[in-house]
């Protein structure tokens, strides 16, 4: 199999490109400017029913430039990194900045906050995955799923992908920084069927910066199969109030809503249910939520944010109290605060695990709903009202009784945070949000 032959741009090339676009911006009249350039390349392979389905070679590049003319702002981006296009982008951004309004909060992050000596975070581990190798791994993964049980009747296939990207950010404070990252992932999705012709699909995946940290292909396949199988025979529930145990992979979304609510842009618009809650208890006292941007090899790690501001480990919730918001420079100025290095989001948000593992949490819950899948977008960030489609298992006396489906779980996120009874020790580290299972009391389950 052939590989693309166009040489990859390295950090130095991208630094030069960022420098060029900043020069062009100044030439076009910008008083200050910032730019981010990136290039990503990768391979993704999908295998279905033992045969290759798709083989995709990816190569994406782009640059985005933001200019300020005094307090007016304009942005432009292009996928073409040739000098003429860089000039056009800088000029387009300046053209826009002539029409936007003076905004006292607009501008680069404070120069004093720029990351000076930032750490190397060990995020770049190219695999050199070839198409043939990828096909073999995906085949092994899917085969393990299909051979798991005769009731695995169909497959959406297994896919593997491996990407390497380099990103550089620079601004007219003189800051320029960049680094390369890799990301490798393997996933599998299969269908289980019963005699009545009902089908259930489920999936599993593994993702890491280093190939050695991936779960074994067979283990991913087996987990996907087991997850699909256990959903067969799903029933509905009658409408009720009960505790809900979110498995770690769906618990992540609950913390995602927390992130959304402490984000600067939602706060200064008063579009968050956590407006004015700084220093207030929003979780029970045992809860500790923190950001850990410098974990080596972690998926969410970054030495500086999207404005060049140094990232740092810090508490967001301590003793149950909201200690900090997640602010970029603009939101910070709107709120009269200082950037927390969160332009571009939070990095490795972690809720500390509690002492109980998953089985102990089931017993702790006693009778209630174990949720393993959520669908839909029924969350109102302004009010905290929460209502989502769910599937999972009904639990009695700490034991799973039967699968359930076509139900909703509803409540209000403010109450749900206060009613968090326990965090599991079963941490899921596959993403930017790191959590164990979450046991939450007092949700409404709607069904028959």
């Amino acid at each position, binding site marked *: 199999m052939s590989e693309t032959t166009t040489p990859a741009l390295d950090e130095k090339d991208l630094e030069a490109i960022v420098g060029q676009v900043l020069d062009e911006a100044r030439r076009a009249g910008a008083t200050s400017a910032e730019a981010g350039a990136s290039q990503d390349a990768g391979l993704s392979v999908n295998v279905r029913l033992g045969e290759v389905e798709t083989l995709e070679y990816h190569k994406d590049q782009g640059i985005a430039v933001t200019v300020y003319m005094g307090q007016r702002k304009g*942005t432009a981006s292009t996928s073409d990194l040739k000098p003429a296009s860089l000039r056009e982008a800088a000029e387009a951004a300046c053209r826009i900045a002539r029409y936007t309004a003076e905004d006292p909060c607009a501008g680069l992050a404070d120069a004093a906050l720029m990351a000076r000596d930032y750490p190397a975070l060990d995020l770049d581990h190219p695999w050199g995955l070839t198409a043939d190798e990828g096909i073999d791994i995906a085949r092994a993964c899917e085969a393990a799923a299909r051979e798991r049980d005769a009731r695995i009747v169909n497959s959406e296939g297994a896919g593997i992908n491996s990407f390497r990207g380099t990103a550089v950010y620079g601004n007219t404070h003189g800051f320029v920084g960049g680094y390369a990252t890799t990301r490798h992932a393997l996933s599998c999705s299969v269908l289980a069927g019963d005699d009545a012709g009902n089908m259930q699909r489920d999936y599993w995946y593994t993702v890491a910066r280093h190939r050695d940290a991936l779960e074994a292909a067979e283990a991913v396949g087996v987990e996907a199969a087991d997850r699909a199988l256990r959903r067969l025979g799903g029933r509905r529930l009658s409408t009720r109030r009960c505790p809900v145990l979110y498995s770690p992979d769906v618990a992540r979304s609950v913390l995602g809503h927390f992130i959304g609510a402490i984000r600067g842009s939602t706060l200064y618009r008063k579009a968050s249910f956590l407006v004015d809650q700084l220093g207030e208890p929003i979780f029970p006292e045992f809860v500790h939520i923190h950001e850990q941007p410098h974990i080596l090899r972690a998926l969410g790690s970054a030495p500086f944010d999207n404005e060049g501001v140094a990232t740092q480990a810090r508490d967001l919730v301590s003793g149950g109290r909201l200690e900090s918001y997640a602010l970029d420079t603009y939101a910070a100025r709107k709120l009269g605060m200082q950037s927390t290095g969160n332009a571009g989001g939070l990095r490795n948000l972690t809720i500390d695990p509690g002492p109980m593992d998953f089985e102990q949490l089931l017993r702790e819950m006693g009778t209630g709903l174990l949720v393993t899948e959520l669908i839909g977008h029924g969350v109102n960030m302004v009010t905290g*009202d929460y209502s989502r489609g769910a599937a999972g298992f009904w639990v009695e006396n700490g034991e799973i009784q039967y699968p359930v489906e076509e139900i909703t779980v509803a409540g209000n996120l403010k109450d749900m945070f206060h009613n968090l009874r326990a965090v599991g020790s079963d941490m899921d580290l596959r993403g930017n949000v790191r959590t164990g299972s979450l046991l939450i009391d007092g949700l409404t389950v709607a069904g028959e």
Partner: protein
Amino acid sequence: MTQTLETARQHLLDPSGLTDSDLDRVLGTLAGPGLDGGDLYFQLARHESWVLEDGIVKEGGYNIEQGVGVRALSGDKTGFAYTDEIAPASLMEAAMTARAIGRDHQDGSVPVRRAAPAHRLYLPVDPLGTLDEQAKIELLQALDAEARGQDPRISQVVVSLAGVHEVVMVLNTEGTLAADIRPLVRMNVHVIAEDREGRREQGSSGGGGRTGYGFFLEKERGLGYAREAARQALLNLDAVDAPAGTMTVVLGSGWPGVLLHEAIGHGLEGDFNRKGTSAFSGRMGQRVAAPGVTVVDDGTLEGRRGSLNVDDEGTPTQSTTLIEDGVLKCFMQDRLNARLMGLAPTGNGRRESYAHLPMPRMTNTYMLAGPHDPAEIIASVDKGLYAVNFGGGQVDITSGKFVFSASEAYLIEGGRITRPVKGATLIGNGPDVLTRVSMVGNDLDLDTGVGTCGKEGQSVPVGVGQPTLRVDGLTVGGTSH
């Protein structure tokens, strides 16, 4: 069409000096005996956006994206590569990479190209130039003032304006040549209302289509979005907890058609049915909806957000009857899945960009009108929910379970609309929800042009629509029971 082709050529090929013989050579690498053919998808998209917040236009953005995607097909296998450099060498390199999927790597020849027939559902305008910059700013400001003028409780207003000028060209190894120039504009107004007790609520509204920005000035459409967003936010300030449980639900006309998109639309896409992974697999010709229910996917509506003159594989779009009088009639197909299922493509092959593979996707999906007056439908319900505005939805194709989230809803008590209730997610089972449709309204309406559909990580603009519907038995995910 000739003129569109000429324009597309000027935008996509001429700047890099790509000639017909270059294209023949590249297509030839995809036409060898080891492959079932392939295609090239050239795209140039220029996008702009403007955002007003706190009463000032504080952000504007401009983006250019261009490239070419090369696909090689062999049975049900697809090889794919793309490049953002439209030039002979990089195009050939992408083609050689993509064709690695085939059994052997010989070149072949391609038939003489012929221009595919195409509709003319929108003018080949560049929407970005249909208003000057100052007029765009004034439009945003007018909507801001309109929303704030509705009520002193409107405390925050965010207005956005976006336009895309997209030029695409498709060539395949069967000799198809197609081009399309696709304008797309969109406005949105999001407001927050805050009452004296500090209770806050939100409302949002918007619209758009395949046209220029003048669309928002006609019939005060833009101002209408501002009024509508404010109305919803104010209404929600008075909303009580939504009910929980299974009940009769009356869905309003227009955007609530997102029901059809989630409950049956995705399940009728050809790829899932070829693979047998859809809850609708093998159900062709069977009853999947109540008598009187007819659902179409129609990519040929003039100026609509989900419409296309040709799809992203060069197939002209069409109106496809998915469900006729309650019986499943047709799936939506791209070329690959149609070929593998021995059926005809239906003009539903779509892709987010040159860097993504096409797959069967919806265009404008809606239910035809029935006999009932909407007032008669509401009056027929003793106790239930009347839901008229929705956020997004989602579906599990295999189990058929789908959700869609109401953002404006009311209780129906004794045949009358009584109190507004908070938003809630509604959940149902796709293959049987339409069998529970007991009344179909005579007020078919399409949405205002706001829909974006996500599938396997790719987003495309779509439309939905329906008349007022009574559904006997949908589960409402509120908190009150």
